[in-house]
């Protein structure tokens, strides 16, 4: 008797567990509809042919007359390939230079004692609060009159040479490196530059990777400043080109959808490949 009683309780518990699992999957799927449907709708629209409805009640999602014509049209009218190359060039240069410059600066801030260290550190910290848009008017003047890089890709790279936030994150990472490692290097007669390159950077590689990935995505999606600088079609980055596309294809929803898809898919693939680093980077930003 008792055995079956316990068995019943167990089945009931198992059934409740199963019900809970179903409930949570339902919740998860509902939430993912909210984030995925707009993308899916744009993606499907980009394949719609001339016979497919863009305007209809109820909305038609699946193209019945699928075609690549929209992609071809966008590709032929705008140098989308060039946008890609420009974006890659700008993002790669920005990441390389920014990580180098910031990690150079982070080393003394984390591991050396010298006059003015705290003053410099707090000055850098304070610049995080300053809205970057505030600097665009003088930076525009500099670009036109001093650096003469208006309408070149350099203009999209150089102002992002250093960022206080990255210096801050890398300083946190360097602080976690044991002093013994650095002292060992010094006893061996290594220069500070060698210590930085051969000891510190390899040790904090995970932090470097997360800083690099975040800088890459920020640069890839950056719009305001590049849109002020880049005016020749062949020199535009993706977001700037996308705005131009919206201007050109005003009411051609299929074409715009194709353009948006071409821009979003690569960054999504990049994200999926590096998902783990992304998540760890976020955690690192808060926890140091």
């Amino acid at each position, binding site marked *: 008797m008792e055995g079956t009683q316990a068995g019943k309780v167990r089945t009931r518990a198992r059934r409740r567990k199963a019900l809970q699992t179903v409930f949570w999957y339902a919740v*998860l799927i509902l*939430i*993912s509809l*909210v*984030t*995925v449907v*707009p*993308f899916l709708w744009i993606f499907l*629209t980009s394949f719609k042919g001339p016979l497919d409805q863009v*305007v209809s*009640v*109820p*909305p038609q999602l699946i193209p019945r007359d699928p075609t690549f014509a929209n992609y071809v049209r966008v590709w032929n009218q705008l140098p989308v390939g060039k946008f890609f190359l420009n974006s890659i060039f700008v993002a790669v240069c920005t990441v390389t230079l920014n990580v180098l410059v*910031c990690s*150079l*600066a982070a080393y*003394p*801030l984390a591991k*050396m*004692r*010298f006059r003015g260290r705290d003053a410099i550190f707090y000055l*850098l910290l*304070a610049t995080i*609060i*300053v*809205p970057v848009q*505030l*600097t*665009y*008017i*003088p*930076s*525009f*003047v500099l670009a036109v009159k001093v650096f003469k890089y208006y309408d070149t890709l350099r203009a999209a790279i*150089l102002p992002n*040479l*250093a960022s206080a936030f990255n210096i801050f994150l890398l300083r946190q990472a360097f602080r976690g490196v044991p*002093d013994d490692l650095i002292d060992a290097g010094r006893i061996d007669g290594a220069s*500070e530059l060698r210590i*930085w390159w051969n000891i510190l950077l390899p040790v904090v590689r995970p932090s470097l990777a997360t800083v690099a990935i975040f800088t890459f995505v920020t640069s890839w999606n950056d*719009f*305001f400043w590049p849109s*002020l600088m880049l005016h020749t079609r062949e020199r535009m980055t993706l*977001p700037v080109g*996308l*705005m131009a596309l*919206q201007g050109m294809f005003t009411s051609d*929803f299929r074409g*715009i959808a194709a*353009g*948006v898809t071409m*821009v979003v898919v690569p960054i*999504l693939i990049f*994200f999926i490949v590096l998902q783990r680093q*992304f*998540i760890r980077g976020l955690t690192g*930003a*808060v*926890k*140091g």
Partner: protein
Amino acid sequence: MVKRFSLTPYLFLTPALIAIAVFVLFPIGAVFYYSFTDYDIVTPPVWIGLENYLKLAQDPVFWKALSHSLVYLIVTPTLIVLSIALAIVINRNLRGIHVFRALYYIPAVSGTIAIGIAWRWLFDAQGGLINGVLVWLGVLQEPLQWLAEPAYTLPIAMLMTIWMGVGYYAMIFLAGLQNIPEELYDAALIDGATDLQKHWYVSVPGLRPQIVFVFVISSLAALKVFEEILVLTNRTGGILDSGVTMVFYLWRQAFRLSHAGYASAVAIALLILTLAFSVFNVRFLERGIEAD
């Protein structure tokens, strides 16, 4: 630690300090100077004293922009509540949970311009999915001109900011949740806490550093909102300037109308607003990030 005086630390800092000086510190000084001048970027600035500021004080669009930027701050508490809720939902060991987490994160990496263009079509009067679904379900009798309705411009932009941010901030909170010791939840269960109480009394206090971080970051971002407005209103700022924010007004004055002097005064107002808002946050920001 290097104790004797040496040039080395300064040499390491030089490239970064030069970059910050040229692209941040100098521009702050310059924009302050421009704000007292009549300047169109092409011809040299002409000193006009406080004229820009006096004009600003009487400019209804500026006050509108200021109030819109302050209203935009509503996204911050909304984001915090929704992201914590989402973090709690995704903080469980289900098969395929990583796929769901990735799906929620997608809007955060796709870029504001691409998403903004998608949203413009989502809310389009003719072909928009929102109208299509609402009319089909009978909620609306006929398509609504969402983006031509001044009252909706700002809310739609805010909705977009929230939609883009929730997955991102939820990941931050998820990491925080995973650091809260399991025993605290067990203790709460023994004390007879319900699920909701458990999260209110254990999760929320445990997430304090993350809440501070998200609060500071998202409110600073809200005060500077620009791209959402630019894309959704197709560079116009919306009917009757219904979507104009501080940064949008700065952009329009400086780079559309070539009123760089006047725009600089807007920039200084933005700086004051941001500073006023952050002064009491700076210490929290540091504590939040440095909480080892």
